[in-house]
């Protein structure tokens, strides 16, 4: 086929989806601002209807939109160039996401290696810390806050116990779960390439299940932290960074699990072939990315 033959080209027909999606996002974000403002004023009795309405519109549009993309692909309307564009688009998106987490990790390192040291009375700006809180010991994780009357001390930290006790250490099991889910999603990918539909459904199903178990354990961990350990978002910078980093990671796992679940439904509907499966592949890339972030989290937030 001659590549010069561009006489038949495809320009998608007009669509309302983007406008509705933008309307949904805009409404949702304005509703969020409204909500936050009520939160700030301490009157959390509002209905937040704008936020939920916007979210509903957005969700509905996305379902319809993705359905349409899939349908167009099945009709053979997506050409090789578009398919390659999806690959590049997803790659750059993940690159942008990497920078998102890099900023969080940067904040964690700055807090640990600079701010905490100064508060403890060491280093260039140590003199203020020494003057204000002479008793404060700069040890990470911080379980004794400089001024417990402002930020109550957390009862204990999430720091890893000695190796021998890892059997009862929840984050260790979460690491194992997430790492094995990376393997299973890879197995599912291999299964698609080999045309093994049964194996695809099985491996993908296991992956989704592992994602859900991870989230369940994470919620368990949070509840345990809040109710028994006394570690909350408001117990000083250790708790703040802990919940910020693991929370945003958890949010990404939630998204990833949802995306993989959609791929699972598609697998049951007979989608994906050995040479056309980027919807699945993009989901699996995202999942691997979330996994890698967790490995860093496990090391820097829990162990180190």
């Amino acid at each position, binding site marked *: 086929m001659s590549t010069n033959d*561009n006489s038949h080209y495809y*320009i*998608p027909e007009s*669509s309302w989806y983007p406008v509705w999606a933008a309307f949904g996002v805009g409404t949702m974000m304005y509703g969020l601002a409204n909500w936050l403002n009520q939160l700030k004023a301490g009157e959390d009795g509002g209905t937040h209807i704008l936020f939920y309405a916007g979210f509903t519109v957005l969700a509905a549009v996305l379902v319809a939109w993705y359905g349409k993309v899939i349908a167009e692909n099945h009709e053979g309307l997506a050409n090789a160039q578009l398919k*390659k*564009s999806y690959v590049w688009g997803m790659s750059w998106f993940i690159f*942008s996401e990497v920078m998102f987490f890099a900023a969080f990790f940067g904040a964690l390192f700055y807090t640990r290696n600079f701010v905490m040291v100064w508060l403890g009375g060491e280093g260039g700006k140590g003199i203020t810390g020494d003057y204000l809180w002479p008793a404060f010991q700069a040890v990470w994780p911080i379980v004794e806050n400089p*001024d417990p009357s402002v930020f109550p001390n957390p009862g204990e930290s999430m720091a890893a116990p000695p190796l021998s006790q890892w059997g009862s250490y929840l984050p260790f099991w979460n690491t194992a779960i997430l790492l094995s889910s990376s393997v299973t999603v890879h197995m599912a990918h291999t299964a698609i390439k080999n045309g093994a539909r049964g194996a695809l459904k099985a491996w993908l199903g296991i992956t989704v299940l592992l994602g859900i178990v991870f989230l369940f354990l994470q919620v368990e961990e949070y509840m345990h932290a809040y109710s028994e350990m006394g570690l909350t978002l408001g117990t000083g910078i250790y708790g703040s960074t802990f919940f910020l980093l693991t929370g945003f990671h958890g949010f990404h796992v939630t998204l990833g699990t949802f995306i993989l679940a959609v791929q699972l439904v598609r697998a049951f509907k007979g989608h994906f072939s050995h040479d056309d499966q980027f919807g699945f592949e993009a989901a699996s890339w995202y999942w691997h990315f979330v996994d890698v972030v967790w490995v860093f989290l496990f090391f820097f937030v829990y162990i180190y």
Partner: protein
Amino acid sequence: MSDVAHDASEFAPPAELEEMELYHPKTWIGKYVWSQDAKTIAIQYAITAIAIGLVALVLSLLMRLQLGFPNTFSLIDPSNYLQFVTMHGMIMVIYLLTALFLGGFGNYLIPLMVGARDMVFPYLNMISYWVYLAAVLILVASFFVAGGPTGAGWTLYPPQSISPGTPGTDWGIILMLVSLALFIVGFTMGGLNYVVTVLQARTRGMSLMRMPLTVWGIFIATILALLAFPALFVSAIMMLLDLLLGTSFFMPAMVSLGDQTAYDGGSPILFQHLFWFFGHPEVYIVALPAFGIVSDILSTHARKAIFGYRMMVWAIVAIGGLSFIVWAHHMYVSGMNPLFGFFFATTTLIIAVPTAIKVYNWVLTLWQGNIRMNVPMMFAIGFVFTFINGGLTGLFLGNVTVDLPLSDTYFVIAHFHMVMGVSPILVVYAAIYHWYPKITGRMLNDTLGKIHFWMTLLGTYSIYYPMHYLGLEGLPRRYFAYGDTAFISESSQDLNAAITIAAFVVAFAQLFFLYNLVRSLRKGEPAGDNPWEATTLEWQTEHTPPQHGNFSKELPVVYRWAYDYGLPGAKDDFIPQNVPPSNVVYETDK
């Protein structure tokens, strides 16, 4: 000449489908409002950005009135002044310049210049614009809520931004952060589109090293944006947590209005690091497209190939890379370790190398060119001058010891307005005068354009040159009024009044421009397809303005780089990129 650079065989033709009427918008509203055509979206971006930019211009005039004639007008009170400073800065940097260069010029020029029918993801492009519009509306909404917009300065430094006493700590700061988050979301979608279009949708023969520098500039700037905006997003999230959920990431122990606040131990400097990790690349997100556009305009109107094309490309890439390791030069006075200051001063001065390469190459492009002194060319040359001016003061401020006394004075304002305000805006005008004929099919009026140029250029120099002097005298920035102080000479007030008058002259000059834009839409001289006799693909379309799908049945094939002006021996003064070597006529008589 097998000069087709990338492997065209990878691009299979689309499925067996006639070009159907179905795919072209049928209604007026489908064509101009709910459009997915990159060209229409570009115009929507541009109009929205310029509209909100005019709001920011008016805010600056109100501030100038206060500064120039402090006891004469009682239009604004001190809190208003801070709010206007904040909104002026934020709107100009993010909502005008970033959106206009990438969303406006990027959308219009990338597909046309690389020979594509549209962006690779037209719907994503469309949603990107509408989300941007929502972000603008939420930002504008902050003028109408209780307490008004935030008055924290465009850098939003905590603790000021969320401490009681600062204007707009109720609604304003929340709306600002939410609007920024929304802008970033919208921009990320658009940005992915621009990057992938450049990587994926180039026509046959358009290798990376044949792309016009405009596309290079926008391409690298978009990559910077994709990598830098997440840091702003993260700092917005953390600030919201500090404000609402009582964490203390950024808030130190402090006493506010006599009471100890409910914070301690946080680090405002951490915010500054995060903010400037975004903020410095942001400078180049605005500057790189300007560099690219100005290179193309200079080359076209000087009828000469751009000097050192490869160096120009690598300079853009180098500036993009370096821009990520200079951010703390905005923080010399924050009390950070002097060794850091040394490091960041060094990297900052290193950035002058690729930048100087670009300036030399622009000048050498002009040298012995057959210069056509029309309006876009005047603006482009004005940019080179202004950029050198602003860049030189950048060398002052990049050195720690020189920066310390100048920090937070009008010298800094003069510097960044020269280099990041006036320079890019001159390029915006150059680009509008240059591409307006392609966008509308009509020329802009030359006389009005020249009046606009000279008033704008001389006016802005009258505004910002005296500010250097005020800064050296020690006049601090962001002050509502100066009152009687020993170190500020009385004549500085006269200078301030003169600056205000110059600002009004510049603002008045923009009316010529706006009138020209509207008038030429109907009454302008018909432009034809290629009024500037330019080589790049957007001038080679069959229709002007280009129709939906940009090119007619066949996409152009590219045989040469974008700068074949005055090729030795060739009969024509310029050879468009899609002219095959066999069609070039040489003067064989000699």
